[in-house]
């Protein structure tokens, strides 16, 4: 718990930055737009319709779709910007809708009275319509505030630090203390910000200047803090840290921490991590220079990036082709091969395998139509699955997509008969599963490789040299043990990585 709380200032501060700036921009967009809509009636349907459509996009998807969109415009596509834009769009509807409703709801008799006493249309708006619509507008602002704080936790997969870092990594590594800290902190933040908006409104409505002043001062202070902390890196001379990326599963958290610590130890350069990135987001981030290092797998790059649909032969061949492709197309270097494969595999309960006599995937084919299989979010849409299905002629009764962390629970409880396991996953033995042999070579090799971006290659030869030392440092058994320590025994990924380095450097 203590090590989780130590991360709170960083995560909370990033969360506040994101939320406050996004809310400010949501309000700056939707208030004038809402006012315009009440003046130009034909705008109402298209504008509110568009805002509603944005709202129906699932929030995680809205944030994720910003990544390729921004990349196509050659803007920062990972980190603060995509999260900020997504959140801003999300906050527009509640404020916009309530502005329109609030102004439209002003008693027509009062509107006529405003004209009757000699107000211009602008004075009518500022002196009568907006003050009377204020409670409704503020209600919209409060809705937007609470939503934005909540949805900001989904910024983690697009590379923006937030309280979501607790939740994403906590769920993957079964660290429920971290999940709890993340949830409580974001709920607390939502309540504080909501209370602040409410206080301003009550103060305005009851004409208590001192109350408004106090709440406005706190708000202004928060914004000042946000702007200063966001702008500080732009003016500081400190070297940018070496950024290590991690996708959102246990092995990646351990390896990112390991690389982070290793670089700091060997070169003395500060290093930092960007965690829980989406699978393709991580590669894009490396190509764009938002991160400098991360670990990927040769088979994943082969299938996804190079678009190969065939299984490309042995480990060495695939590795060589991937290496050449990355260097030519993206200026990315494969600096080390860690020494283990984390392949997709088909796993069954050991008890079933023994009863049925399953040792190979071929053995499943006759019973296929009676079996159900669980896969992670990607598996059934990946070329590996197509390859398994077509190579073996395997048909199943049911394919269910679920979170990787829950997949193991599902097979243990008998909800599915097979799962798409990862070969280095500690949970294979922990849950008493058996990996079935890919006897017809349908699954490509998945060598874990350390990738580095063009800038690191150019600017930081010492980091490059340090990383080269890791070539062949981790075998499959070691990786499986480390994963097991986190997933099953509840150890912290950082602690596991530290232990590995200590142990590895101690043995000559």
């Amino acid at each position, binding site marked *: 718990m203590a090590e989780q709380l130590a991360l709170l200032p960083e995560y909370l501060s990033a969360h506040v930055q994101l939320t406050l700036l996004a809310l400010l921009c949501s309000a700056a967009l939707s208030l004038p737009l809402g006012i315009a809509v009440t003046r130009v009636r034909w705008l109402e349907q298209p504008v509110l319709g568009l805002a509603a459509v944005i709202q129906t996009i699932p929030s995680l998807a809205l944030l994720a779709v910003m990544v390729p969109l921004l990349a196509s415009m050659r803007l920062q596509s990972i980190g603060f910007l995509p999260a900020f834009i997504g959140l801003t769009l999300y906050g527009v509807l509640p404020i916009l809708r309530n502005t329109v409703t609030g102004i439209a709801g002003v008693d027509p008799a009062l509107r006529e009275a405003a*004209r*009757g*006493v*000699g107000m211009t249309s602008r004075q009518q708006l500022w002196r*009568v319509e907006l*003050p009377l619509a204020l409670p409704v507008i503020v209600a919209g602002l409060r809705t937007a505030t609470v939503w934005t704080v909540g949805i900001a936790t989904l910024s983690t997969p697009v590379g923006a630090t937030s309280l979501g870092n607790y939740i994403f990594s906590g769920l993957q590594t079964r660290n429920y203390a971290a999940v709890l800290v993340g949830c409580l902190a974001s709920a607390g933040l939502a309540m504080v910000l909501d209370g602040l908006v409410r206080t301003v409104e009550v103060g305005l409505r009851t004409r208590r200047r001192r109350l408004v002043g106090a709440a406005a001062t706190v708000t202004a202070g928060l914004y000042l803090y946000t702007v200063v902390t966001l702008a500080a890196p732009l003016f500081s001379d400190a070297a940018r840290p070496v950024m290590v990326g991690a996708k959102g599963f246990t092995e990646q958290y351990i390896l990112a921490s390991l690389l982070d610590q290793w670089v700091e130890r060997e070169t003395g350069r500060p290093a930092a991590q960007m965690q829980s990135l989406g699978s393709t987001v991580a590669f894009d981030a490396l190509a764009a220079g938002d991160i400098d290092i991360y670990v990927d797998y040769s088979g994943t790059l082969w299938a996804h990036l190079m678009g190969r649909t065939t299984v490309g032969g042995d480990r060495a061949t695939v590795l060589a082709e991937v290496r050449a492709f990355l260097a030519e197309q993206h200026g990315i270097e494969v600096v080390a091969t860690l020494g283990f494969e984390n392949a997709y595999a088909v796993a069954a309960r050991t008890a079933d395998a023994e009863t049925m006599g399953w040792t190979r995937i071929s053995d499943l084919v006759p019973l296929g139509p009676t079996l159900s299989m669980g896969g992670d979010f990607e598996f059934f849409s990946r070329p590996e699955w197509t390859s398994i299905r077509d190579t073996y002629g395997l048909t199943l009764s049911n394919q269910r997509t679920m979170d990787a962390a829950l997949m193991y629970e599902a097979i243990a409880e008998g909800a599915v008969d097979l799962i798409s396991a990862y070969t280095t996953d500690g949970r294979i033995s922990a849950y008493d599963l058996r990996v079935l042999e890919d006897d017809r070579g349908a699954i490509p090799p998945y060598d874990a490789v350390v990738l580095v971006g063009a800038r690191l290659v150019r600017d930081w030869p010492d980091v490059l040299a340090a990383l080269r030392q890791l070539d062949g440092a981790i075998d499959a058994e070691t990786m499986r043990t480390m994963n097991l320590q986190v997933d099953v025994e509840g150890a912290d990924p950082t602690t596991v990585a530290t232990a590995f380095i200590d142990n590895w450097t101690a043995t000559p």
Partner: protein
Amino acid sequence: MIELQHLTKQYGDQVAVRDLSLEVGDGELLVLLGGSGCGKTTTLKMINRLVEPSAGVVRVGGDDVSQLAPHELRRRVGYAFQQVGLFPHMTVGDNIGITPTLLGWSPDAIRRRVDELLTLVELDPDTIRDRDPAQLSGGQQQRVGVARALAAKPRVMLLDEPFGALDPLTRGRLQDSFIRIRRDLGVTAVFVTHDMVEALRLGDRIAVLDKGRLVQIGTPRTLMREPADDSVRQLLDTPRREARLVDDLLSDGTGT
């Protein structure tokens, strides 16, 4: 002071006011009298351009109002609404001072004017000034409404059934106050009502409207003596008819 020339207002096929011409002299109070939907309120609102006429000309103090900016015109013409229309988010004082505020008077001058007007409409400035409109009774609100209409010292005042929603006793007291205020200020006014007694008490002249047309215009005495047609006769006979009804009831009660 006010001239209406061939004023017409159409909403689609519906004619609300048809070819209406009349004049209101300086310091005169003209009552527009008629039943619901006769076009009296529409006529009133065309004078300060809350409603734009379909045809015809309105002159206030000699100026064609279509040539004035609407908000400038309305700051020169006091308006008291049937629903009062006090702004609920402002104090009574701020409501009364709104037109002077829009005209850029100094805060001091506004404060003095507000107190003067509250006294004029027989409310105590010190207890009423800083209250919210919602804290006042209906009669008090309507007094404030009249004060607001008078705030910028207009020479012309328009009143749209200002006492219509009040109980008879309160209405009577407000009429008394209004007669006195008008005598003190000598302001020109157009007063819309459907209440015969009110029309007879307040009006220097009465214009009877029916289905958007001016049926007859004249002093109360002229209308009583020489009604233009049966409808005017019946309308003017209402107070007497009501009084007879009351008499009958009384004699019935004492006779047996």
